[in-house]
């Protein structure tokens, strides 16, 4: 039997104005288990708390009920009070007689009657409370960052800066991501490489950071603080630790006709290649799809020219398993395929390009060496048409495109238009837009400069059709403001393709049990207040995997994710919320129903041997809750028909007791 103390708070007149607190304390004296019941002006005050502490010690209380304001207000306070007096903090229940009683009811008899009932319910519950201890689990002080773009790089650097080891897993042979492919960045127009490559070097030289390039995550087990991750290191046929990145092999390789994905296939690379000059790690990679040696066994040129003997044609995929305390997802984005947008003639003309392709065409390290030339004939384009919102903001029923705004297109198009006008003032630049969206520091100013200083023609309206004709691109568009249909003979058409999450995100989300929205963007734990955490504890989100973002935003989120990770890794042990689900193995029949409704993947099954009453043993499948992962929602408790799954702190019996007390 519990020994319960009841403490009724006046809250000045907040409660006492509508509730006869003395009568409440008096009425609750005779409830089962109650040994002391008293009232006080302000329970939450220092003196009030002292009173509770003394009562706990003096009466050897095993549980207390505080009839006061909402538990959302002072539950934590009174739990600390109880703990200070040596009582388990989870032996405290609050009867909310302020927000849900005195403040909403007018007359004293009504308020008093209800307060008594609420008090009885709390007493009924506390009678069934059990001391709870938050579970503890150790924290592996290492973080994994999945994706080596600017988001991943920034997150990794920030975490490493705090002294924790970080591994980056990147599917490409080099880190750098999309930003490495960009030419300049808005709104300051500094060169992407100039600001990115130093960070890449920082990553490479930071002894806290390991880079697993040309690798992917193949399995994730465990939970916050204790993830076991298997990383598949794809065979690159070049020994990473030996290769010096001299590049000789990439010059001598006879297979010259491999489309260069870094330049978006606008030029070619060799079968052995280093994606770009500042690649990190600067190590060659053999593309097994194109390598003659690997395909036919004849060639071996690279091996012959390699002075350090780094080539290894027999390399195999390797799997390594590592423990991590936290995982940051930074899988980034890709422009969507333009295949479904026939009206823009993307597949018909080389001169219809996406904005990312334009970045490469304008980049000094790009296929044209930085001179803007038409991909079809290498001529200088004089009329350039930019089309906005290609595949963004589409109707959900439309088969092509995405419903959301891709967010970055307005700004990079302004940047492109401005750069072109700056470098080639003889060029006419038209931008067809639906809306120009420039919320961001110095963004609108930047856009206005494109219009006002650089004379870019911004036309409200959309391009309806692009038809290649006689070496030109006939662009038919409407000018909504002028009420005209325009026909422009363009030399180059640039499509602001919508962006979408990388294809690797979906299977990764499944492995991480992190949730995704219908567009395959990772869902954040709370859209406003927890924007960098996934709902799965220990998994954080960085960059465009969570939604379209520009670089400054990505970097901010990367830093925020890093700080969340650091805050986690700083702890030696994680203490969880003790109000978690618990499976009674004797009752559990292992049916897997609870597992299906758990949003956190906190439930696993084991085959457990039970000693039967007749001294035989029986192996049964039973559910186990990982208390470090469970967040205590209780979905499983209702899914469980045998009642084996219960929620500590909100057990079936406790809630029944509350119902009973209220319905008395």
């Amino acid at each position, binding site marked *: 039997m519990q020994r319960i103390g009841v403490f009724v708070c006046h809250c000045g007149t907040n409660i006492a104005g509508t509730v006869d607190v003395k009568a409440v304390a008096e009425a609750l004296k005779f409830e089962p288990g109650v040994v002391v019941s008293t009232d006080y002006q302000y329970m939450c005050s220092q003196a009030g708390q002292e009173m509770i502490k003394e009562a706990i010690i003096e009466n050897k209380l095993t549980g207390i009920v505080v009839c006061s304001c909402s538990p959302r207000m002072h539950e934590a306070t009174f739990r600390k009070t109880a703990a200070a007096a040596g009582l388990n903090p989870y032996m405290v229940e609050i009867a909310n007689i302020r927000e849900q009683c005195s403040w909403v009811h007018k007359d004293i008899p009504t308020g008093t009657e209800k307060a008594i009932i609420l008090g009885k319910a709390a007493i009924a519950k506390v009678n069934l409370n059990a001391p709870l201890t938050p579970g503890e689990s150790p924290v592996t002080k290492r973080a994994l960052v999945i994706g080596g773009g600017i988001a991943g790089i920034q997150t990794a650097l920030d975490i490493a800066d705090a002294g924790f080891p970080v591994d980056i897993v990147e599917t490409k042979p080099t880190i750098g991501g999309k930003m490495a492919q960009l030419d300049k960045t808005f709104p300051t127009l500094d060169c992407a490489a100039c600001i990115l490559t130093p960070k890449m070097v920082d990553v490479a030289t930071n002894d806290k950071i390991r880079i697993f390039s040309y690798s992917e995550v193949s399995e994730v087990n465990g939970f916050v603080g204790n993830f076991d991750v298997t990383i598949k290191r794809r065979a690159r046929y070049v020994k990473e630790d030996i290769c010096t990145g001299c590049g000789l092999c990439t010059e001598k390789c006879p297979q010259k006709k491999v489309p260069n994905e870094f330049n978006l296939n606008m030029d070619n690379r060799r079968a052995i290649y280093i994606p770009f000059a500042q690649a990190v790690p600067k190590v060659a990679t053999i593309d097994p799809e194109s390598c003659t040696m690997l395909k036919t066994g004849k060639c071996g040129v690279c091996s012959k020219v390699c002075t350090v003997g780094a080539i290894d044609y027999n390399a195999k995929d390797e799997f390594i398993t590592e423990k991590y305390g936290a995982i940051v997802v930074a899988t980034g984005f890709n422009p969507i395929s333009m295949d479904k947008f026939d009206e823009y003639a993307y597949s018909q003309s080389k001169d219809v390009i996406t904005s990312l392709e334009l970045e490469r065409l304008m980049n000094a390290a790009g296929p044209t060496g930085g001179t803007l030339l038409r991909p079809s004939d290498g001529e200088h384009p004089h009329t350039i048409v930019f089309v906005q919102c290609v595949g963004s903001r589409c109707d959900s029923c439309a088969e092509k495109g995405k419903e959301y705004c891709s967010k970055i297109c307005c700004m990079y198009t302004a940047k492109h238009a401005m750069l072109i006008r700056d470098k080639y003032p003889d060029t006419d630049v038209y931008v067809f837009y639906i809306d120009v969206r420039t919320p961001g520091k110095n963004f609108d100013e930047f856009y206005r400069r494109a219009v006002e200083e650089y004379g870019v023609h911004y036309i409200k309206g959309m391009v309806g059709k692009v038809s290649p004709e006689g070496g030109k691109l006939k662009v038919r568009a409407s000018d909504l403001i002028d009420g005209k249909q325009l026909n422009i003979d363009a030399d180059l058409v640039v499509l602001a393709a919508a962006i979408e999450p990388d294809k690797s995100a979906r299977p990764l989300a499944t492995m991480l049990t992190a949730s995704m929205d219908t567009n395959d963007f990772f869902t954040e734990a709370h859209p406003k207040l927890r924007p960098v955490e996934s709902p799965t504890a220990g998994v954080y989100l960085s960059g465009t995997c969570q939604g379209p973002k520009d670089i400054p935003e990505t970097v901010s989120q990367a830093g925020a994710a890093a700080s969340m990770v650091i805050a986690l890794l700083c702890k030696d042990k994680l203490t969880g919320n003790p109000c978690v689900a618990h499976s009674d193995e*004797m009752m559990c029949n*292992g*049916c897997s129903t609870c597992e299906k*409704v758990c949003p956190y993947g906190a439930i696993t099954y084991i085959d457990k041997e039970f000693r039967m009453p007749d001294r035989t043993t029986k192996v049964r499948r039973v559910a186990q809750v990982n208390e470090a992962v469970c967040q205590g929602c209780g979905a499983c408790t209702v899914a469980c028909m045998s*009642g084996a799954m219960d929620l500590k702190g909100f057990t079936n*019996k406790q809630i029944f007791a509350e119902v009973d007390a209220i319905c008395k």
Partner: protein
Amino acid sequence: MQEITRDVLVNKASELMSAGTVDRVLGWMRGEFDYDITPAVFSTEEELKNNFVWNDFCGANFSKYLIRETQKSENKVLVFLKPCDTYSFNQLLTEHRFDREKVYAVGIPCNGMVDMTEIKKANEAIKAIEESGDSIVVKTLYDGDVTLDRADVLLERCKNCKSKKHVAYDELIGDDGEIIESARFDEVAKLEKMTADERYAFWQNELSRCIRCNACRDICPACTCEKCVFDNPNSGVENKAPADSFEEKMFHIIRAFHVAGRCTDCGECSRVCPQGIPLHLLNRKFISDINEFYGEYQAGSEVGNRAPIVNYTTEDLEPGEAVGRGGIDA
């Protein structure tokens, strides 16, 4: 009358036993009369030859017995499954209730099973029952022979058979049938069209007869809890006998809710109820609601299916929209 004979099954079982595929057989054992058939485990060909039966009274669904039976030995057990039994079989596999590797399942065709309660309603003191084609001849002690149309005395679940197709088996005897467009929801729809008062009166009358013998639960292949919440003194809802009409409702509502999405509509609950309560209607109500709200779903049609009640979409209908639909009045 069933289309295959007992001898076909006995031979199949003997063959599988002597081949060492299985070392025992879950089958129907003859009783004192023609109709009181008991599920049994046969472990010798002799027993099979003497006591195995297969006739119009072999309603028992063996799926649930497999939970206990597969734990007894490492060897395989042979089980004969009628089409509707295979759904329970799959559902139990979905819930990891027995090891598939320890079972050799032989699917057998079924022409529907006869409801002895129905026969006994009109005929007392039954000496013998003979099956011939579409008729049943009931030989009574005092009133001579009565010939009944077999179709009239089938079990409710067989009158409204939902599938002659086996969804699980290692081996099939005879040809597999088809899934049938049955009228099994008609009775539910009829009740839905009544007024709330009529429905209340209907269920009050039906459920008030409940004696809480738990036969419905204990025969149910979906009720496989280690310990039912209604038996568990620590569950907070344990009770033994209905001391108030509320408890009858509580038990049956919660039981139906617990099997919602898992009930294959095998009809055993109604078959065994000693008080003749049409318990299957509660389960069918859930099934028809699930079909209507969340798309057609047949529990047990495939192993590993995720029941709609442990699933969701962001566009589901609101509970307020689930009530007061169509024929259901205020």
